């Protein structure tokens, strides 16, 4: 279990984390969702003790400790956003070194290294230098280095940024497996589909503050008064988004590749006006559908911005 009380951290005039109080239950797979710059990494650094808060506290009641004591450190595993290992070392050498820092030695060390390599699917490439790894393999090695000491709490900071779908799936499956083993996992991401697929409990962070917290269902209930219409365009073309925004009830419009997504208030009955606007702009459409609320729309509704803005 992790308890955060009134955590605040500023860098110069920027308040990265603003008075956050949060309790993460033991054994949960907790999602921290927010756009880039929302304060996710700073919050993680505060939890792990890498940076000190300006005010507030972090406690680990189940681990009999306050912040960053030796006992707490040995039970924490961090997978940082950036790769944190030695490029000139092989995967095995990297994992062995970091495991050694946690006091593992002899047979226990060897077994832990083999387990970490196997868990991340790197057994066959364990002797290869890390600098010769693909982006996805580097991400997996980053995870192996963070979990080799068998921590109770694992924090993964955007572990799937910029990797191939195969490695991404492997990582997502591994995270689920870790949680099933009974560990507490904090998973930060700005990919809402990952949070939807993995996390039972989610906090949405924006501009250093938690703007919503709950299970997926609870969060989606928050926006039952909104619906989204998605027009699939025949080909990429210029769309006057401002014109759509002027239609009564429209809260947000975005164009993503061939998809024109319009979020509106329920009960306003503006579908006719939306289709008229599509016709007026002579946009060729192949499909129209409305979708159920997602975490993306929750975020959109709460902030007026897309997660990837």
């Amino acid at each position: 279990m992790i308890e955060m009380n009134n955590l605040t951290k500023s860098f110069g005039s920027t308040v990265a984390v603003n008075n956050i109080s949060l309790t993460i239950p033991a054994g949960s797979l907790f999602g921290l969702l927010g756009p880039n710059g929302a304060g996710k990494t700073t919050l993680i650094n505060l939890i792990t003790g890498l940076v000190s808060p300006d005010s507030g506290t972090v406690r680990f009641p189940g681990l009999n400790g306050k912040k960053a004591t030796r006992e707490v450190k040995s039970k924490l595993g961090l997978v940082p956003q950036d790769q944190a290992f030695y490029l000139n070392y092989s995967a095995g050498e990297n994992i062995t070194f970091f495991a050694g820092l946690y006091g593992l030695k002899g047979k226990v060390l060897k077994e832990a290294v083999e387990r970490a390599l196997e868990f991340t699917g790197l057994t066959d490439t364990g002797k290869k230098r890390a600098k010769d790894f693909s982006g996805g393999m580097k991400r997996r090695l980053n995870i192996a280095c963070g979990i080799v000491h068998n921590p109770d709490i694992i924090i993964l900071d955007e572990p799937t940024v910029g990797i191939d779908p195969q490695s991404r799936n492997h990582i997502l499956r591994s995270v689920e497996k870790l949680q099933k083993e009974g560990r507490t996992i904090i998973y930060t991401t700005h990919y809402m589909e990952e949070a939807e697929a993995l996390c039972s409990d989610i906090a949405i962070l924006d501009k250093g503050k938690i703007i919503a917290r709950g299970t997926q269902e609870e969060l989606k209930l928050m926006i039952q008064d909104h619906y989204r219409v998605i027009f699939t365009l025949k080909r990429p073309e210029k769309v006057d988004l401002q014109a759509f925004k002027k239609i009564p009830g429209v809260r947000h419009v975005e164009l993503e590749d061939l998809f024109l997504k319009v979020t509106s208030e329920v009960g306003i009955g503006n579908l006719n006006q939306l289709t008229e606007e599509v016709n007026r702009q002579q946009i060729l459409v192949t499909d129209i559908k409305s979708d159920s609320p997602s975490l993306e729309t929750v975020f959109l509704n709460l902030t007026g911005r897309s997660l990837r803005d």
Partner: protein
Amino acid sequence: MKLWLIIRHQIRLFSKTLNILVLLIAAPLFLIFTFGQAFSAIWDKGGFDFRALDYFGITLLTLVVFNGAQIASWGIHKEKKSNTETRLSLAPIKKDTVLFGTFLGTWIILSLLTFLLVFLAHFILSVDYGPSIGPVLLLLAAETLLAVSLGVSLAFLLQEKAANALLQSLIPLICFLGGCYAMIPESGVLHSVSFISPLRWVNLALMASARGGDNRYLLPALLFCAGLSALFLALTGIRLRRHS
């Protein structure tokens, strides 16, 4: 146990950068040879009782060894850049263990490289290091100790740019006062000021040892280097403890 882990890791990290190690051996040998040849005519006219090659075989060697401060600093900043420092900070290991482990590992590898350089300079270039090699190696090990502690301390305490700027100002000054670039006059202000440079003492001790086994400067030079080194590491250790 964890100290030994950090020492081994530091040695292994250096040993993986083979291109740098080759450069660290080849460049000084080339410099000693070039300077020895270029100044041999002047030396002959000056009526010195030792060759230009023997002079630069000592002063250029101590100059190169003192630049080990840059290498030590570079190694630590590389750690910071590669984010591995984050993992070291998170692990249940004391910061001063990391400091001393890094220091000792770098010192061991740079000392071994220095000893290799002495042997290669002696056997390939025929540089004369005197009748007894023991004091020579001891002095160079002490100088390496000083250089590494300076580099490691600055790298732990300062940002890369500040540490580099300071080292790039300090090293040439200390080397100049040590007589690494040119001979220091036998009298005058420069002669007096030169004794604040630890390299002056190391070079004097090496020259005296090389010419007839005179060891009168040996102890002051060793104490100067070891004392400064202990001071740097103690200050850094205290600062790190306060910070954590």
